């Protein structure tokens, strides 16, 4: 990784900055971001291993280029919504690392007050709309966010992430159809790591990913998510088109998951061979690819890289320390926010425990 010297990869040319219209300064910012995501997830991995984080925990390691490249070109008023592998997407949209980590730890200071957990990170202030645990269920929600933008004649766009498996859900197809007929400002993004849990995409679809939106008349494109510059440029241009009233778009972002489906799963196994994981990890690490480009162009040296990495490690550590020192939700939180409207009449809660504020 960052401190390891690896062989320079093809495509790591200095011209990439010009080709994609991404300045070296911006590229360094993207590197800083991706380093934060990597170190954050490694910290989460470590915390999970010692029992500080419970439940399901789906890490984004290997897919950092997708989060940075597709979210960083957006504006603050744009919406991002995702599935359950969403920690780093939340970070990219502006949720504070300590807020995400405290949520993973189940603490009151977490983004969702410790009541959502890894799969349900929400932050209204930065328009990060979750964190949804049912495969594909966020796709109609995203369509509704886009509906609101159009209804109120606003200028925003919605970026909706999903895994490759989600495109086989009815919710996906129904949503794309509606987005198309109503010309909604949504970008549907398949974070295509080629495996829905342990099922290879080619086993569950006869057609290619980029063909999935064609029945609905939605233009599709594909981009290499391990190449953050290409991804950034792609989404920068796409957001401008959609923001300008161009209607919805579908993007197949090619990526790879370097870890298991969740923390409970092995990295490789019966569904994908170790050599494949090793090859991808060594040859298609989005951080290494960008680092080498910056090195090659003379925009970064080893000392600067180490400084960036130290900064990322410290931010992840600070987030973990904050989470560790934060209190769990108080007992009052158990019944809080089940209802937004406490009607003056009638009973809303039926467990008979007598501790509910609604009797």
């Amino acid at each position, binding site marked *: 990784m960052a401190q390891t010297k690896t062989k320079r990869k093809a495509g790591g040319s200095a011209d990439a900055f010009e080709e994609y219209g991404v300045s070296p300064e911006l590229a360094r910012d993207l590197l800083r971001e991706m380093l934060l995501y990597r170190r954050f997830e490694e910290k989460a991995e470590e915390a999970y291993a010692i029992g500080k984080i419970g439940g399901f925990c789906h890490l984004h390691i290997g897919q950092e280029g997708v989060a940075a490249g597709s979210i960083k070109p957006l504006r603050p008023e744009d*919406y991002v*919504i995702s599935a359950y592998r969403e920690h780093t997407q939340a970070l990219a949209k502006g949720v504070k690392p300590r807020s995400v980590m405290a949520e993973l730890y189940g603490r009151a200071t*977490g*983004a*969702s*007050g*410790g*009541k*959502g957990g890894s799969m*349900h990170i*929400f*932050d*209204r202030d930065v328009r990060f*709309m*979750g*964190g*949804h*645990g*049912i495969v594909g*269920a966020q*796709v*109609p*929600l*995203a*369509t*509704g*966010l886009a*509906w*609101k*933008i159009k*209804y*109120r004649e606003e200028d925003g766009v919605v970026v909706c992430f999903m895994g490759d498996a989600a495109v086989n859900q*009815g*919710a996906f*197809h*129904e*949503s794309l*159809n*509606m987005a198309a*007929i109503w010309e909604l400002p949504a970008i549907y993004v398949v974070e295509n790591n080629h495996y829905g849990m342990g099922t290879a995409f080619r086993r569950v679809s006869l057609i290619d990913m980029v063909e999935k939106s064609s029945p609905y008349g939605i233009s599709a494109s594909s981009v290499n998510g391990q190449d953050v510059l290409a991804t950034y440029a792609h989404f920068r241009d796409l957001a401008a088109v959609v923001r300008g009233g161009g209607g919805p778009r579908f993007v197949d972002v090619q990526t790879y998951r370097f870890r298991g489906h969740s923390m409970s799963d092995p990295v490789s196994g019966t569904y994908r061979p170790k050599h494949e994981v090793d090859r991808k990890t060594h040859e298609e690490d989005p951080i290494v690819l960008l680092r080498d480009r910056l090195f090659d162009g003379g925009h970064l040296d080893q000392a600067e890289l180490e400084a960036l990495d130290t900064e990322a490690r410290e931010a992840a550590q600070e987030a973990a320390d904050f989470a560790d020192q934060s209190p769990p939700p108080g007992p009052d*939180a158990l019944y*809080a*926010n*089940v*209802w*937004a*409207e406490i*009607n*003056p*009449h*009638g*009973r*809303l*809660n*039926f467990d*008979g425990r007598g501790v509910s504020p*609604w009797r």
Partner: protein
Amino acid sequence: MAVMTYREALNAALREEMERDPDVFLMGEEVAEYDGAYKVSKGLLAQFGPRRVVDSPISELGFTGLCVGASMAGLRPVVEFMTFNFAFLAIDQVINSAAKMLYMSNGQFPMPIVFRGPTGAALQLSAQHSIACETYYLHSPGVKVVTPATPADAKGLLKASIRDNDPVAFMEGELLYNFKGEVPEDEDFIIPLGLADLKREGSDVSIITHGKMAYVALQAAAKLEKEGIGADVLDLRTLRPLDVDAILASVRKTNRAVYVEEGWSHVGVGAQIVAIIQEEAFDDLDAPVLRVTQADVPMPYAKNLETMAKPSADRVVEACNRVLYRGAR
């Protein structure tokens, strides 16, 4: 007061709330150009245009989820299901998204949204169009459930539901749409959620019910009166929030109760009502609480079988006689 049908009362509620709040919009199958499968939305497209009265594709999961997302972003959608029987395709978005969003986001996203349409049986629509769906929604915290029986209740409760900041499953009755009744015309006529209505008073037995079974209960009460038995008919009107005080007050007066519902008995609405009564008014009871429900079978098509399957006034009378220890057992 004006005399209007249940359908017209719902239409008036929608119209008034859409006039009052530009964030309220209606989406569903056939709601716009067709004027509504049951004409509840008649004239709304002409008044409000296609931005706010929206014909959806037949994609229950999709348009329900779209409206849940719109609610999350601050709009106040009204989703029309042609019948709640079709909403089984959409219930993931009601239970897993709408009902939990506020809680799992720690209060960041209130979800003002109404899911409305007919529930229960009409006439010979058979197994897949006749389910009383209340209990599926009642089971989940985070969703309110409203079941108006009369035109006035339909108007006042729909307006309250649209103004409520939580998801509301608003369950109508296909056979009720043509029922007429007096309805206040005041634009601020609201019936707060959580208030039952004592539709008839008596001191011998409590017939507790909701939705269109209120009429079956009233028929049974009229029959019982001829036999010298006075029955309370308590229409719960909303099932969550639930007017437990009204249930307990009636039971404490009569000491005997029968629950009438259109749905199936097993883990049905009545099961919960019986549980509450025995937990909180056990000492006031002079007899077990009985339930009159649909037969525990899918709804058959043949007219004679359908009649047998549905709750009837005669079955309610029989149940009341049993809790009164009168006549044949």
